[in-house]
């Protein structure tokens, strides 16, 4: 069953003033579908059209042309109806009332979403526990740190039990532990409640830990769409080898292999798997050198993604 469907969705903005006034195409003819329960990373460089896409899918922006449905509703004509069934979190825009405590905010949101008072109280307590925010919920929002606030933002986003969760750069500005915690919470919501996740982020770790599918957008157009694992496998044309020799080997010269760094007995090698297999390189090394240790790893996902952005794949 589809959670999101778009067909040739496009959005133009007017930029500049007076004589410099011109139309800018932020999103151009994007077509894709998202199944219910999927965790999709919608990524791209700055200005690619990610946030504009989310704003159209949540009904904030009206498209210039094209079609879209979210949970069977047209977002920009059925915005309020859709708002009851989705949750949206913008990492750079707070939806909390800074003068209120999180509990008061959730109480007010429960009224806005017309939740039963008892259900809302139960759900508030549940979320406070799930998000490890029981000690934060009665503090004024203005006194919370960014990491604490983002946990409360997530509570506010999922209070009404949304079927689709739109997360626009939700981990921006968070420290490593807060980011990790946030990702775990999102995955947990997806696994326990079947919530569809639509995530945009510049943080590759968000994509690796949260998403099972990735759509890459650049210059307003979708340029890649595949499972995260498959993307890594199909686009990897190199392997990284970290070799520790028993004694300094001198020059390491193997066809299809490049030395990236060397320090005494430890060498970093990049294997171009189009020219030579990893097995052949390992055989060569073991036959010709005294090896103390070897590790073989994939290049970081970041590298794969930057290659997609630059159109080198």
């Amino acid at each position, binding site marked *: 069953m589809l959670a999101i469907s778009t067909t040739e969705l496009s959005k133009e903005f007017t930029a500049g003033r007076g004589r410099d006034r011109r139309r800018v195409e932020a999103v151009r003819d994007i077509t894709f579908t998202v199944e219910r329960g999927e965790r999709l990373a919608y990524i791209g460089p700055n200005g690619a059209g990610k*946030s504009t896409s989310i704003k159209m899918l949540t009904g904030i922006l009206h498209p210039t042309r094209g079609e879209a449905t979210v949970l069977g509703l047209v977002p920009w004509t059925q915005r309020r109806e859709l708002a009851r069934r989705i949750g949206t979190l913008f990492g750079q*825009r707070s939806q909390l*009332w800074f003068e209120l405590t999180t509990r008061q905010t959730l109480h007010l949101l429960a*009224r806005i979403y017309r939740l039963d008072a008892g259900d809302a109280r139960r759900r508030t307590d549940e979320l406070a526990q799930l998000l490890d925010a029981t000690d934060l919920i009665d503090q004024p929002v203005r006194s919370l740190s960014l990491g604490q606030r983002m946990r409360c933002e997530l509570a506010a986003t999922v209070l009404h039990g949304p079927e689709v969760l739109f997360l626009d750069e939700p981990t921006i500005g968070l420290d490593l532990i807060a980011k990790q915690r946030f990702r775990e919470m999102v995955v947990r919501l997806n696994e326990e409640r079947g919530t569809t996740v639509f995530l945009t982020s510049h943080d590759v770790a968000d994509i690796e830990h949260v998403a099972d599918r990735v759509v890459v957008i650049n210059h307003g157009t979708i340029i890649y769409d595949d499972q995260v694992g498959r993307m890594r496998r199909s686009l990897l044309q190199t392997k990284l080898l970290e070799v520790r020799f028993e004694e300094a080997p001198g020059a390491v010269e193997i066809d299809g292999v490049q030395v990236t760094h060397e320090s005494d007995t430890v060498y970093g090698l990049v294997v171009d798997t189009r020219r030579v297999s990893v097995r052949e390189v390992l055989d060569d090394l073991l036959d010709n050198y005294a090896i103390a240790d070897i590790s073989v790893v994939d290049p970081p996902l970041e590298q794969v993604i930057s290659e997609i952005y630059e159109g080198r794949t």
Partner: protein
Amino acid sequence: MSALVAQVHLAARRTLRQPGELAVRVTFYAVILVIFSALWSAATKANGGSIAGYTAHSLLWYVAAAEGSVIATKPRMIETIGWDISSGAIVTEMLRPASVVGLRLAAELGEAVVRLVASLAVGGVIVWLYVGPPPSAAGIALFVPASLLAVGCNLAAQHAFAGAAFWLRDARSTWFLYQKLVFLLGGMLLPLEFLPTGLADVAKALPFAAMAYAPARLASGHVEPWLLLVQAAWLVALLACAGGVFRAGERRLEVVGG
């Protein structure tokens, strides 16, 4: 409806929890009242005891009511709303299954009612001490709902004016214009009867009169219940206008980037 009531209630509680801000505003209002009391007392005395039918006694109650009704709303609200629109901060409000302008009005109403009560309580005591009790008990009874209607009209009109930011992307000039209109044509600075006849008639026909002149006229002892009907009509019209402006504006909102 329950969300709007909750919003009013929370906003009122929030304002009460910030006594410092409330105290500054009430003090400012009290200072203005003292200055105007001295000014209008001298002016009426110099004019043979009354100006355009207002004695010093009724004039001071007029000033207390007019200033108190207007000062209850935030001074730079139009600018703030305009900034929220042009910066895109409003998008988080558009994600809720409720009227953006409705929730905003409810929050502002909750805050304004607390300020209105605090200001008028202090203002009433000052004026009472200065010139004695209100000129008419019936007038004061009518003033109570009129002051609430005045605040409602003012809030709705400010939201309607601020909605210009959806098109202009900046509401600072709108705020400047609005402030001057309420000040002069709303009867905040002086009763509209003090203006030249033609201008006074025009001013009375405008919505700004519902925000200061109407409650102040009643508080100054002129028992004219029809003023409440005029205010109620303006409130409905201004609410419809604010709602319409926001609905149209939300449709053409352009927010680029995160």
